[in-house]
């Protein structure tokens, strides 16, 4: 286990290094620099001074070295566009909000998705099954930004039940979470249903029934745990999907999370912020995937983490 963890940790560091390098190359291959997009024109001298200040006049390799140093020390320096704030400030302000949105979304998606999936499987080919699966197809097909706009139109503008935007009270959270969670809920529901249907035909379910266990116990103790394996597997990808979803949803609902800074920083060529947020997002995602693997080994005793290829 310890050896596995160390190995895994080294791989995670290597992955982040590769992502950091790719980001650096991609970022510098976008035409323009942080100052070309400014509205007011700056004089040549000012421009040169700025370049010098942010080391943009140095050779690429040196800049890359500086970037790696900032990565290792986890100090990305100040933002170019908002010089009063460092990238770390932005991250520590934006991340808790994004994380709150993300965690609620995941939790609600898991809870409702699994419940729907299990119900659909138990009432296979019944009314509940058809309703749940119709909803699931809708949920997968409708993009979250469409759903978000529809929700705002209906709940905020027409019915005036919920506030239309920003992030200050639980009431504000409802619409963004619904908009963001619907897609993942649908995916989880479909997956749970199909794997539950498969598990319910397994011999060990028959054995459990032959023992005289109650239906509830059979479903929860014997079926669900096995049926959730595929759900755990896609959880990593789902976290990534929700993460990218937050970029859009945060913009629509004017939520001051990380997504806002991320998108703005690319538009502005705000190099330090791009670097900081990208690496932070990647590190977060890699860590989530790592967590998924751990959860996997807890759920299924047959998966051993220390074995080669077990990752």
């Amino acid at each position, binding site marked *: 286990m310890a050896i596995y963890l160390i190995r895994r940790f080294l791989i995670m560091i290597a992955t982040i290094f590769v992502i950091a390098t790719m980001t650096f190359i991609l970022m510098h291959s976008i035409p323009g620099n942080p100052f070309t997009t400014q509205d007011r024109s700056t004089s040549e001298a000012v421009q040169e001074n700025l370049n010098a200040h942010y080391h943009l006049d140095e050779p690429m390799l040196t800049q890359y070295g500086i970037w790696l140093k900032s990565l290792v020390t986890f100090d990305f320096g100040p933002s170019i566009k908002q010089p009063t704030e460092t990238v770390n400030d932005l991250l520590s302000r934006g991340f808790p909000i994004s994380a709150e949105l993300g965690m609620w979304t995941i939790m609600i998606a898991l809870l409702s998705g699994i419940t729907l999936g299990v119900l659909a499987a138990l009432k296979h080919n019944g009314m509940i099954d058809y309703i749940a699966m119709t909803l699931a197809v809708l949920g997968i097909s409708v993009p979250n930004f469409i759903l978000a706009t529809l929700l705002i139109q209906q709940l905020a503008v027409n019915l005036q039940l919920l506030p239309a935007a920003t992030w200050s009270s639980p009431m504000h959270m409802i619409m963004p979470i619904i908009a963001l969670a619907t897609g993942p809920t649908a995916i989880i529901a479909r997956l749970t249903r199909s794997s539950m249907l498969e598990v319910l035909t397994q011999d060990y379910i*028959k054995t459990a029934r*032959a*023992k*005289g266990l109650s239906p509830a116990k059979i479903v929860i*103790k014997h079926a669900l745990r*096995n049926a959730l394996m595929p759900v755990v597997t896609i959880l990593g990808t789902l976290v990534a999907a929700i993460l990218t979803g937050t970029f859009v949803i945060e913009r629509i609902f004017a939520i001051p999370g990380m997504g806002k800074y991320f998108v703005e920083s690319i538009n502005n060529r705000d190099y330090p912020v791009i670097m900081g947020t990208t690496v932070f997002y990647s590190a977060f995602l890699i860590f989530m995937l790592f967590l998924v693997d751990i959860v996997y080994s807890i759920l299924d*005793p047959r998966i051993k983490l220390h074995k080669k290829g077990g990752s």
Partner: protein
Amino acid sequence: MEKILEIEDLHVHFTTYGGTVQAVRGVSLYLNKGETLAIVGESGSGKSVTSNSIMQLIPSPPGKIVKGSIQFKGRDLVQTSKKEMRAIRGVDISMIFQDPMTALNPTLTVGDQLTEGLKQHTSISADSAKQKAMDMLRLVGIAEPDNRFKQYPHQFSGGMRQRIVIAMALICEPDLLIADEPTTALDVTIQAQIMELFSEIQEKTGVSIILVTHDLGVVARVADRVAVMYGGKIVETGDKDAIFYNPQHPYTIGLLHSVPRLDMQEAVLQPIDGTPPDLFAPPQGCPFTARCAHAMQVCANVYPPATNLSASHQVECWLQDARATRAASLMKR
């Protein structure tokens, strides 16, 4: 002898998109206390459906017991409510399934699976449940039960898993054990060990056993009585010796001839030609007619009545009819 189980005229149908499968068509059988009854027959003959019906474990829908009764300890299991049935399952009647590799839940420890039935049906403490489970593991011949208790199914071999499945079935001390092809998925040496175990357990606990199998070697080893099923019906039933040494139904004879024997010189086995009947539209007469070397005109049209050859030996075949015997003897002359 006290009868522990008596099935009367059992009919089980499965409704599918392609039509209704009449899997079991009027099965009657009984089981005495402490004896082993083997139900033999080829795939699709209805033997598993019959045994699952006793437990009321026919998947429904599509399966349904349309007619008949299953008397067990003075009650009809067909009429029993689901809740009452749950109290019978695992306690009075236990069941063992074919494949031990899949019969255990891979994500729960063996100990947990052993004790959960016990905990469900009795108000036993966790400690004594564990104690009992250890005793059962010892009974079925698993060494170091203390360590094994905490392990998961994948840490056991196939034979060991079947032993655990048997321990699990016996832990509530049932009166009736139904074993649905318990050795089919095991290799031959392990099969022998498991059958040995069945005999031992029966000696120790006095449990009655219904053994569903298509392996006549297994039958010869442990059964007291044999019921031969074909096309959803029991075509011949009798004591083991009667079936093995004095088989009367052409199907039983064919079945016995298709088994490899050490004392026979022929290099080629004798298969029964043809295929089993289509149970979507079962034949009006004897289902074996199409494959029977002795088939007569009557066989295709009318199902033969039962003939009692002795108190326990019964066969359903037109060859038993006095007129057929006369015809046969005439032909010989």
